[in-house]
């Protein structure tokens, strides 16, 4: 059984490139070139140099002692929150901006939900001097004002998506429309492991640095590169794929993907895609998505804008369907409590997205010897408003 993409762009039943003809030349250009460019020695050298000197990698693998005591296991946190711009998103934008340059593109577009991917894209555009347009749902623009200001200061144009639910899904639609209308000079930096092939594979490869480092760090700290569990939150699923990537073929390592249950899986206000979704096509790939009987995409809900997405990447759909990964969910309330807990026990304020992964520790049973890695995908600065309102701080 392969858990990775095949030559046709599929992960089992999922993936492919369900795109209108207008996008075909762009996506095909990328498909034909991405592996070649990424394998190039100069490209790799520049990519890793920037990850080291600009992003600040490797990100630490931190043994959270007090949390470990509480849960009766060795809880390691992969500190993606310490990256430049505050989340794992920049691993991918650094890779894609270098790739866009090799393809001769002059203009960059991106979608963003919480604004983390938008900021990471605006950042690398400033770094390389490329024009940047970020599409963001009108609702998200209001709830993530600090990130909007950061993008603007970085020189990006932030365009509100005003259709549908005015959140991440609609921002993605608008970015795709922009790409259709600008078929020659523009590269679309998708922020997650979603979209038409080769995006899910390309983004996974850029994010795989997370598990590559984790393995080395585990050997140093525990003597083994084989943890018992790795946990990560899943919206589209890019930090989770990055965290899982080098463990996927080692079936002894249990993969736990935590979705956002919102106000509860059956509340009608949820983003728990594997619990509520069916197979279908969204944003260019066949995957699992929340939809009506008629195939209309359902508006999701989560307190965390980064998980507020009605689909998951096709590789996740495959890991879920084959049973290789456990897909579970955590409510808004549980995630906020977990965020507060980490803050007060370890002095780390996590992004509410990452707090979903942490919250699942409460539901697991350990015997004291397990090594557990949780991907702390981002920091909570952007979420202070939500935390303050919820806890009356």
């Amino acid at each position, binding site marked *: 059984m392969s858990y990775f993409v095949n030559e046709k762009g599929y992960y089992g039943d999922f993936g492919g490139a369900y795109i209108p003809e*207008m996008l075909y*030349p762009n996506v095909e250009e990328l498909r034909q070139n991405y592996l070649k460019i990424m394998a190039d020695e100069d490209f790799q050298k520049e990519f890793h140099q920037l990850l080291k000197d600009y992003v600040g990698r490797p990100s630490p693998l931190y043994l959270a002692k007090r949390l470990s005591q509480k849960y009766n296991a060795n809880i390691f946190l992969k500190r993606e929150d310490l990256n430049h711009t505050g989340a794992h998103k920049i691993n991918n934008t650094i890779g894609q901006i270098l790739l866009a340059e090799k393809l001769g593109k002059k203009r960059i577009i991106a979608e963003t939900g919480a604004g983390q991917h938008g900021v990471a894209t605006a950042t690398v555009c400033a770094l390389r001097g490329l024009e940047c347009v970020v599409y963001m749902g009108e609702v998200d623009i209001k709830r993530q004002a600090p990130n909007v200001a950061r993008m603007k200061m970085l020189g990006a144009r932030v365009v509100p998506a005003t259709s549908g639910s005015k959140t991440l899904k609609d921002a993605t639609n608008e970015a795709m429309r922009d790409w259709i209308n600008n078929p020659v000079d523009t590269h679309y930096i998708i922020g997650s492991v979603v979209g038409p092939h080769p995006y899910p594979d390309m983004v996974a490869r850029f994010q795989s640095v997370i598990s590559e480092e984790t393995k080395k760090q585990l050997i140093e700290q525990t003597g083994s590169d084989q943890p018992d569990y790795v946990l990560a939150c899943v919206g589209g699923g890019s930090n989770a794929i990055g965290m899982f990537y080098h463990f996927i073929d080692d079936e002894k390592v249990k993969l736990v993907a935590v979705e956002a249950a919102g106000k509860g899986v059956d509340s009608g206000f949820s983003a728990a895609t594997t619990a509520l979704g069916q197979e279908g096509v969204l944003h260019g790939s066949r995957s699992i998505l929340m939809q009506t009987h*008629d*195939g209309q995409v359902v508006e999701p809900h989560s307190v965390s804008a980064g998980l507020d997405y009605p689909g998951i990447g096709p590789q996740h759909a495959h890991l879920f369907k084959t049973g290789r990964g456990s897909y579970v969910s955590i409510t808004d309330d549980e995630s906020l409590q977990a965020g507060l807990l980490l803050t007060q026990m370890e002095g780390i304020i996590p992004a509410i997205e990452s707090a979903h992964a942490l919250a699942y520790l409460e539901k697991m049973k350990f015997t004291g010897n397990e090594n557990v890695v949780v991907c702390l995908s981002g920091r909570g600065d952007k979420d202070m408003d939500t935390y303050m309102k919820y806890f009356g701080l």
Partner: protein
Amino acid sequence: MNRIKELFQKKKDILSIYYTAGYPSLGDTVAIAEALQESGADLLEIGFPYSDPVADGPTIQASSKQALDNGMDLKLLFEQLKNLRAKVTIPVLLMGYVNPMLQFGVENFCKACVDAGVDGCIVPDLPMVEYEELYKAVFADHGLSNIFLVTPQTSTERIHKIDSLSNGFIYLLSSSATTGQNLQVGDTTEAYFSRIANLKLKNPTMIGFGISSKETFNKACQYANGAIIGSAFVKALDKSDVQGSVKRFIKEFRP
């Protein structure tokens, strides 16, 4: 004989009209088809709405959303189309995105098309490879045409492949764009249309995207067998006088 083939053999400067099923009011679908035929349209493309129409501009996004809010879905659409062939004799295509079709079941979808007298489909986000491997046989079994899109960026090799898989016509996009923008025929567009004309394709061609006036329609007809009007027509539909607004709109093209 296939209604589409017959049309292209008989006529030139074919006028094809796109509109969204269930818009402006839920029950307008067949009434608009009748009014279009009476006014002189040659071919109809009835859109089945989708929540996330990425290839469409604001006008068709809005009509799709309104149709969904009105309660349109594929099941209801096929019910409405049961009476279509009692009155409408011109060829009819269904146009929409792949996900609603997949949820309905491709086989069921094809069967329902045949029962309703629909002649073929345009599904912009159904890739050629998947169509060929998974669905071509089903479409063929039901005698349905599948219409593919070609843009100025589509390679000649790919156009020939599309031609070999097509049976009906090929939908030429005037430019790589979402729907609802104006056609500007400059030197590059002209070169692209001429390039296609010189390929001697087995299928006829229709030009769409950006056709909104008699002038742009005529221009497109110089290079193809006809042209398709979508957004401009949808914009002109008047909820309080659907029949009248259809007739007034078509009059410019069929005086």
